């Protein structure tokens, strides 16, 4: 050896890049954070503008609706309502006012409920977060477990069974699953409550309260989660099969590792990365799905709030819910991105 040992050292050592990287990494992280934040704000601004314009394109305005609901109306009454909502001002002015208020977290006041929109949303948000969070956790855990099972037994009966199950839930309308679950577990078997979020008037406290909520949570969370479970199961299976075919798995075998360790330490870890990333991005869509589920199960979340607001033409509420869900998606994406950077060393600054 050693006819040219210096050449080996010539190749840039990781130490150099690591050292230099460390110094720059803080700056880099800060810059990237700022970039992310700016992008996030730009997206939110765009969403606010688009939603505002979209909803103002709608025929009919809230004053007419309110007037209609009061049982009788005269033009003076409608004009008065329009004025008090600022609907008689130019659209651009309304938009500008709206954006200015948003900047101060003032999402306006609900036409029909006479309360600040932010308050309405914050009232409902925990319910939606609980539902989507539970559904997401269930979907992710069950999906990954099923996917891993299928991948491990690829080509066998278990694989086929899991694949069929996943396809079935993937192909079934979410609301229909909800209806069928209610039919079976509430109507026929009477095991679980079919609607609402808690036993009202029962006055449960502490643990009892959460157990109570848990019982109410099972069906809606299942309904929302089953579809995504199917998605994650399919993804996990595909990712694992793909990773299993990669060179470093052959390396692991050549090292004499047991199959179990190869599965856990090499295949699963690498396969889960894309699955979790995708799931994080998908989490935003869960909020959309929750509209249907909240409608079927009378779950008092923001999905229901949005749908009712839409039917009643309650613009500020609708805009608020949109902005809020979009913000949640953006935040979720950001969190996923950061998580991804944490887990995947290749993305480290």
């Amino acid at each position: 050896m050693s006819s040219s040992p210096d050449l080996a050292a010539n190749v840039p050592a990781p130490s150099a890049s690591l050292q230099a990287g460390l110094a720059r990494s803080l700056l880099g992280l800060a810059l990237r954070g700022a970039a992310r934040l700016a992008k996030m704000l730009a997206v939110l601004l765009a969403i606010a503008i688009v939603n505002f314009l979209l909803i103002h394109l709608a025929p009919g305005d809230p004053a007419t609706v309110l007037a209609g609901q009061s049982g009788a109306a005269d033009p003076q009454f409608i004009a008065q309502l329009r004025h008090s909502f600022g609907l008689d001002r130019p659209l651009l002015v309304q938009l500008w006012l709206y954006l200015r208020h948003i900047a101060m977290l003032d999402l306006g006041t609900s036409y029909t409920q006479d309360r600040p929109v932010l308050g309405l949303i914050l009232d409902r948000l925990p319910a939606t977060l609980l539902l989507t969070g539970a559904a997401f956790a269930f979907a992710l855990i069950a999906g990954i477990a099923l996917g891993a099972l299928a991948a491990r037994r690829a080509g066998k009966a278990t694989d086929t069974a899991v694949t069929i199950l996943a396809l079935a839930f993937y192909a079934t309308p979410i609301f229909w699953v909800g209806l069928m679950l209610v039919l079976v577990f509430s109507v026929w078997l009477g095991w679980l409550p079919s609607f609402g979020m808690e036993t009202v008037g029962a006055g449960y406290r502490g643990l009892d309260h959460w157990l109570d909520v848990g019982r109410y949570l099972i069906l809606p969370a299942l309904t929302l989660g089953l579809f995504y479970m199917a998605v994650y199961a399919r993804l996990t299976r595909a990712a694992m099969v793909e990773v299993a075919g990669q060179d470093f798995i052959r390396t692991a075998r050549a090292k004499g590792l047991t199959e179990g360790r190869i599965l856990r330490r090499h295949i699963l870890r690498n396969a889960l990365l894309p699955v979790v990333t995708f799931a994080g991005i998908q989490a935003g869509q869960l909020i959309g799905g929750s509209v249907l589920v909240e409608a079927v199960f009378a779950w008092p979340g923001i999905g229901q709030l949005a749908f009712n607001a839409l039917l009643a033409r309650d613009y500020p509420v609708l805009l608020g819910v949109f902005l809020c869900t979009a913000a949640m998606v953006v935040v979720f994406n950001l969190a996923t991105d950061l998580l991804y950077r944490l887990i995947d060393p290749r993305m480290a600054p």
Partner: protein
Amino acid sequence: MRTVLRAMARNRGALGGAIFLALVLALAAFAHVLFPQSPWDMAGAPFTPPGQDGFLLGTDSLGRDVAAGIAYGARVSLLIGAVSTLAALAIGVGLGALAGYAGGLIDDALMRVTEFFQTIPSFILAVVLVAIFSPSLASIVGAIAIVSWPPVARVVRAEFRTLRAREFVQAAEVQGRSRASIVCREILPNALPPIVVLASLMVASAILLESALSFLGLGDPNLMSWGFIIGAGRSVIQLAWWVSVFPGIAIFLTVLALNLLGEGLGEALDPRLRQGTRL
């Protein structure tokens, strides 16, 4: 092409899916022969259970034949699924191709727009669009297309970017070919397989989306669609389970068939998968 067909035929799921879809298409095409009366007609007594009085799948709360509804609904579901997918493809392929081929600032701008549309929860956006432009065939198709194009754009852009860097495309560039010729003859034919696969899956999700909209009462009131029947039947589910169960099964099977077909196509068109890499 023949190898693709042969590969598909070997895939039992895809074959089953294709056969079932052919049946659904036949049902849609011959709905007026099988059920000469309009599906809206009150054909019998309300809530006739399946099998009675000659109603194979029973009747609903107005005495309308559920079987006729499903047959005519097949037309609507497939039509909406197909048309909205075509519309989404038109937008997605157009923008994706432009972004992927042009690159640079155009790519950046288009991708921001795509990201933006992916950020808004798509179902809520669809609901808002349909509600605002009031439910009709056009608004439903439009809304579904608008929420479904971003994945197409991303896939097409990715394909275009890879293909654009491929040597045969560069060779065409060096030959002095026009941009149109390069895009249409070199890139697009090679980008088609993933688009075709995506399209079959999109038809499936469009059918699901339409049914969800109808379920919330946002369907076209002049069209008998499966989602509408479930929506109309869900409130009587304890009284007449068949009204919502059968169209639900129709949606389920059709979407399943489309997914199987899509996967089969995907495997058949992807030579890597065709060899059947398994764990």
